[in-house]
């Protein structure tokens, strides 16, 4: 469970980074009129991805052994 969530966060973070990066970097866009990210705040998504990936370490260590109910 702990390992699954941690791994999920790392992978999820990397996916977010990739999406954010590709959306923010329309390659070759320097020559056309608009070089905006494909959707608003795509760079924020990249940064969020970095943060999520590193926060996986927090989850891995801080997750209680047995979830209290």
């Amino acid at each position, binding site marked *: 469970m702990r390992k699954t969530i941690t791994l999920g966060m790392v992978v999820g973070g990397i996916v977010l980074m990739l999406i954010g*990066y590709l959306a*923010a*970097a329309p390659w070759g866009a*320097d020559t056309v009129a608009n*070089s*905006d*990210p494909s959707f*608003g*705040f795509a*760079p*924020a998504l*990249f*940064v969020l991805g*970095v*943060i999520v990936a*590193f*926060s996986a*370490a*927090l989850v*891995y*260590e*801080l997750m*209680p*052994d047995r979830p209290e109910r």
Partner: protein
Amino acid sequence: MATQTNTQTSMLPQGVGRLTTTWKLAMAGSFLLFAVGVFAFVRELSTGMIETGMRNVGTMGGASWGLYITMVVYFIGVSFAGITIAALIRLFNLRHLRPIARFAELLTVVALILGALAIIVDLGQPLRGVVNLFRYARPQSPFFGTFSLVIAGYLVASLIYLYLGGRRDAAIMAQYPSRLQRFHRWWAAGYRDTPEERDRHRQTSFWLAVTIIPLLVIAHSTLGFVFGLQVGRPGWYGTLQAPAFVALAGVSGIGAIIIVGAVVRRIVHDKSRIDLDVFAALGKFLLAFLLVYLYFMSVELLTLLYATPEVEKQLSDALLLGEYAWIYWGSVALLVIPGLGLLWQAFKRRWNVGWLVAFGIAVNLAAIGKRYLIVVPSQTHGTLLPYEVGSYSPSWVEYGVVLGLLGLGALMIGTFVKVFPPIPLREDEEVMVDA
């Protein structure tokens, strides 16, 4: 009740929670600096950047990046060494260096925050900058690396590293009744020092170290790229920029760790906690980075002197003989003399903390000087079109803001050492009671 709490606080190790007069004076001084910085920045915000010494390159004969960008590069450079050393300690299990791991990480966090703030004060539209970078930032711009990797990734990673590394000590501290108990309990977050938890921490710190070291080489290289990818300015375009940035970052960062280390050693009133071996190791690290950087510098100088295009010659003349010569040769002296001193100490195997601190201060001044020489002269001298030679000198507002940033840094470090032990507690000294 209050007196009781006070007496109990005095039991906390390493002077945590005990506010001495020296500390109060130092903090008051730092706060004063910070206030000066805030005043200067408010002035800059309200009137505009006309308050700074910066002007446009070209017909206006100024420099458009000045002391602020110099300090951005310097602060981010300082941040390099702290987390590198902390990661190396965990990766290669350098037990004797463990005492410096925490304040090295702290230095990284503080330096990164100061670097980010120095970028903000340099923007013409600071508030818009904070929003628009998240909204529109383009990976094609070398700034993207500075903003996403250095500030976001690197700062978050360092904070997590600092936080997780401190949990065990926080749990120990939380056993002492004090005004800080609640804070320590929050930091410990239920840590009980079970074998599983220790194991887990070993794993995470290993993997964090493994990911952080390449991340920070990349991050510092992107900072070098901010300059190294530009053909438009003489002296900037070059493959050596990125590695030289990393090397000088190591020099200034380790110098800063030595300084902070000596201060922490005084604060905790226990010299055995950071013994001479630690300083010797730091001295050797510093020497290694210094030699690498001096090598890069010599290569750069030789290239410049041997085959110099016209505009580069204008620039190198200004650097080596002209109006920037005193900064250039001063910085070189502040790098070479500590280098020789370190060599001597390494050769004699006799390390002296006083000298090391002096060398640390010297190389940091040199690092600021060298960063200044990368940023400024390429704008005032050797412009590709034959504009007149420009000039730049920082205004009081810029000096004020920079002093304010340094004051803020001192405030942050000073506060930290009084709420948390700056040196990891020895494993044998406080035993965890299973709660």
